[in-house]
């Protein structure tokens, strides 16, 4: 089973707001647990935490410094 790692809808209000991935705190190919902190994204100098939506092995999609918006898939967990 594959679970997408998405930028949540409720982090900020403006749907068009651009965010940037500032850190991956888990490596590509690492085993992660549901709920573990795996990435940080930033909007206007505020950081938000991305947690793993499932147990499994992380595949990183978007890289550090890539621009993302609400709902974007930034990785997957298999």
């Amino acid at each position, binding site marked *: 089973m594959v679970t997408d790692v998405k930028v949540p809808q409720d982090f900020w209000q403006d749907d068009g707001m651009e965010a940037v991935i500032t850190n991956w*705190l888990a490596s590509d190919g690492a085993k992660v647990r549901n709920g573990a902190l795996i990435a940080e994204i930033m909007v206007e100098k505020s*950081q938000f935490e991305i947690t793993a939506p499932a147990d499994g092995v992380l595949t990183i999609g978007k890289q550090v410094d890539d621009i993302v918006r609400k709902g974007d898939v930034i990785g997957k967990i298999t």
Partner: protein
Amino acid sequence: MLDQPTNERRLTIARAMAEAMQQEMQRDPTVFVMGEDIAGFGGIFGNTRGLFDEFGKERVRDTPISETGFISAAVGAAMDGMRPVVELMFVDFFGVCFDAIYNQMAKNTYFAGGNASVPMVLMTSTGGGYSDAGQHSQCLYGTFAHLPGMKVVSPSNAYDAKGLMTAAIRDDNPVVYMFHKQLQGMGWLGTEAGATVNTPEEDYTVEIGKAKVVRAGTDVTLVGLAMGVHNALKAADKLAEDGVSAEVIDLVSLVPLDRETVINSVAKTGRLIVVDEDYHSYGVSGEIIATVTEHDISKLKASPARVTFPDVPIPYARHMEQFCLPNPDKIVAAYRKM
């Protein structure tokens, strides 16, 4: 899947610093934190995130923009049995409060004949690279390390950041903890990926006063601290493409300075380049070179070199600032000239 890492725990330096303070505050009720925007906001460099929610306003205290007042208050609290961690938001702001730092914090133990100690941590951000201009981008390592009475440390990665903060809080002497903004993992400051490393959850200390050989080599010794270590490691990669084997030393601490590790490395390689984002003259780079030449100049196969920030105010314009900053290409060029 069995061979996948299961215990990976990568932290940014910002998180590592906060975790060390959190654990020491849980362990020791005399530890508290003070500074500008360090409570609800979590510090503008993210290094006090979560502390206010866990420990409340008595132990995580937002201060007015009055560095002289709150750093002096920390000195008094430290001498009266507390272990304060105070933040001077940018090291550039030292000018208004230096009496509290070097005439009180650094000297009171000496003036008291050893009958009083000042067990406090002064944490402060250093470094540029993100166009914040001449009053928010300096390193000033040499300025602090020059003055007796306080230890000075500066981590290059999250593992050392956590262990050094824990060691600094437990130390009975005042410790100046200088963290480079580009290593914090905050994004808007520019982010050096190499600073975000595996960091154990349990508490531990990294010895203050001990340098680390972070890459072994035989042809040249590259010495740096904080951001300089990452520039040196990238330069070592470039040199390796041409068959040059560079050894990289992370000083970790400026006071006490681990001169022995530097001397031993140069005895092996015969060549020395110091990488320092602080100003060129009268600083860490000159001290490291003097250390080696005073000890045994016959070990040197070439004159030592330094890659540093020129003796000018730090420019705001991106191209001008980047022109001035140390980088891997400048280190490689310095080696070529040897």
